[in-house]
């Protein structure tokens, strides 16, 4: 009886970890990519960072997000540390060619928003029927 039960239990556990978000390895920072008619919007989760900590670069149709945060000073000792810290570099592939000169970024409540214009060639174009 017991081995069967234990095997089912293992299967249930394996299934749970396969469907839960936590088991999927994702590079910091977690990033969403959205499309607008003329632009691409990238949002990344960067709690605790300031605009001086982050640098952005566009290479072809990739956005490179780099961060080198200053380490937080505490007086005393840590009882628990769960928050991710330290530098990161993440390259996000964007679904279109971009106009490198039209890019804007802002940082609000720990979320970085970058808006990049699609290049003229990538923008939707209306074709008139003659």
């Amino acid at each position, binding site marked *: 009886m017991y081995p069967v039960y234990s095997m089912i239990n293992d299967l249930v556990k394996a299934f749970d970890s396969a469907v839960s978000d936590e088991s999927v390895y994702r590079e910091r920072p977690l990033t969403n990519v959205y499309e607008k008619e003329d632009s691409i919007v990238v949002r990344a989760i960067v709690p*605790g960072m300031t605009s001086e900590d982050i640098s952005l670069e566009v290479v072809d149709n990739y956005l490179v997000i780099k961060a080198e945060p200053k380490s937080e000073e505490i007086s005393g000792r840590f009882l628990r540390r*769960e928050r991710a810290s330290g530098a990161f570099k993440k390259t996000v592939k964007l679904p279109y060619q971009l106009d490198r000169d039209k890019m804007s970024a802002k940082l609000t409540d720990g979320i970085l928003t970058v808006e990049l214009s699609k290049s003229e060639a990538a923008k939707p174009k209306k074709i008139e029927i003659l």
Partner: protein
Amino acid sequence: MSEKLVNRKISPAADIAENENEYNIKLDMPGVKRENISITLSEGKLEIEGKFSEDANSSETIKYREFSGGDYYRGFTLGADIEPNGVTAKYENGVLSVTMKKREEVKPRKIELLAG
């Protein structure tokens, strides 16, 4: 099941630090506006809630998703050494920092040797 996952509250990652005068808890709560955070201290339990608001607008369609915003909740059971009136909090860059003073009588005290 999918509905349950969508409504599930996110438990924010926390750092807890201590020194001789106080405890400090830092929680990652990105995407929350200051006015949408509630902190309650009752019967030795500290409860923190935050409502997520992503400033997405309807002209955007999602292409690739790694995070989906959800509301935050986390509770902490506090020790008897915390002064209930000595709790302060600030929210900056998506990080909530709660500082709790220790009660005077539990702080380390220096004892002077009397001459004689």
